């Protein structure tokens, strides 16, 4: 699959999550972040994950990436259990997490470097991606010289560079301004259409989830469970115009209806226990 390194772009396959539970032992009492999640994602599907804050969406992504181990339950990709992070999955954190002492191009090659790709080959690949995300002129800049939006584009290029079969995105556009966000969304859709990787996309923006995803999964707040699983049957390729259609508005309203009481519940909890 990968032109860069056969070790990368591993076969992938369907993602199957069974009775996934995660309990955090912080402070006095255990916090159940996720409680018995069952989810099947066919290879190549774009899934939007929404839910009030504290619904364990980020924890879910971290579990799928193998950054943290489940308390109970299992995660398999193409039948193989997930035990640790691997080159078949790319994680896009909300904060760009660029290494400040590395130039932009050397940040983008980080994942390739870690997976044993020669620097020269990796840089060529990174330059290609930086062109696509509009940072071609900034490859020799340091992250500190870029704006937040530019850094986040570099961050996406870094996750994309390893050609993951599953892209895990944790509110990647939350810190971006509206314009940049829309640009990034359409760029992501183009890349996804081309690569057909599975995407799990966590967002607080319901319209973003509906616009991007084949399917929107709504999480309940503490403990995190799946409340609704809505198939978004809008034609592809999608353009920004689709956001003005009635079908789009209907989907947004449907997701919002599921989420509304969760948000209220989560706000009530925050009022009681203070901000977390």
């Amino acid at each position, binding site marked *: 699959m990968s032109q860069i390194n056969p070790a990368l772009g591993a076969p992938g396959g369907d993602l199957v999550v069974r009775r996934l539970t995660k309990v955090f032992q912080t402070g006095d009492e255990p916090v159940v972040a996720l409680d018995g999640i069952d989810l099947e994602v066919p290879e190549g599907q774009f899934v939007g994950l929404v839910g009030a804050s504290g619904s364990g969406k980020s924890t879910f992504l971290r579990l799928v990436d193998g*950054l943290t181990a489940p308390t109970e339950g299992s995660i398999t990709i193409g039948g193989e259990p997930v035990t640790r992070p691997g*080159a078949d999955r790319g994680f896009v*954190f909300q904060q760009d997490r660029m*290494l400040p*002492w590395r130039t932009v191009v050397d940040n983008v090659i*980080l994942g390739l470097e*870690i997976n044993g790709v020669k620097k020269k080959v990796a840089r060529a690949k990174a330059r290609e991606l930086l062109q696509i995300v509009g940072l071609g002129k900034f490859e020799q800049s*340091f*992250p500190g010289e870029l704006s937040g939006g530019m850094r986040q584009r570099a961050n996406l290029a870094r996750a994309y560079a390893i050609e993951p079969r599953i892209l895990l995105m944790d509110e990647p556009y939350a810190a971006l301004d509206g314009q940049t966000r829309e*640009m990034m969304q359409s760029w992501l859709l183009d890349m996804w259409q081309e690569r057909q990787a599975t995407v799990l996309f966590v967002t607080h923006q319901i319209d973003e989830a509906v616009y991007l995803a084949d399917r929107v999964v709504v999480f309940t707040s503490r403990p995190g469970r799946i409340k609704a699983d809505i198939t978004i049957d809008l034609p592809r390729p999608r353009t920004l115009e689709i956001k003005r259609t009635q079908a789009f508005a209907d989907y947004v309203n449907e997701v919002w209806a599921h989420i509304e009481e969760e948000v209220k519940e989560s706000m009530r909890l925050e009022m009681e226990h203070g901000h977390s």
Partner: protein
Amino acid sequence: MSSTQLDDDETGLVPIRGLEGGSRKRILTPSKRSAVIGICSIVGVFILWQVLGMFVLNPLFLPPPTAIWDRFIELIHTGVRGVTLGQDIIASSQAYFAGLALAIVIGGAVGIAMAASRVIRDILDPWVAVLNATPTIALAPIFILVFGLGVTSKIAVCALVMVFPILVNTYSGFSNTDASLVEAAKSFGASNRQIYAKVKLPMAIPYLIAALRLAAAHGLVGIVISELFGANAGIGLLILNSANTFDSRGLFVGIIILGAAGTIITYGLLALERHLGRWRRSENGE
């Protein structure tokens, strides 16, 4: 759309260039001016010293620079008791750099281990705190008793005074790692070794350079003290012999060599730090 806006930000440097071009009267940048003033200050003091040394001061206590220079040339060619200045410098540097290497290996390893393991830190922390607060140079006589008068005890004393600044700073550098950057590397499947090489070590570099600067200065004290206790050659021995024979010119040759060595090492490390930390200048702009 937004990228063109950002392009404009990049060209924000242009007006600054315009400013510089406008004020042609000021030839030197502020940093160059500071350097010129600094050099003038040193040269001025030497001239003052020369004049006072020739007419006012007792040359036994403060010989003028020209007399020290003459003695420097003598020491290079003939030396004292068959040991030339070159041999002294080589003898001292060998012990100094051997001690430094030893201190880097031991201090670095222990510092990293303490940052990596809570148990190791808890075991060693009280000892490090006590020994770091003790003027370890006072332990020099013990080393000379153990290793005898020779290069081994010199290396040991140097390593002893250099190891603690290196250990403590290495520990700080490796325990202040940004966990989110480590996690980013982990998400790509980085091994422990890769996390050290690609994230933790580069993050610790400012601490490690500070460690070397401190250690370098301590080491110069260490080498002189160890040689005062006894040695066959070395700058410390030169200073001791010169003092014993009322050769104040020779004494100053030794002192100036030590001062020059310290200055060169300090500025060399500062330059290295500036080179490795050039990304940080870009961050200050934000």
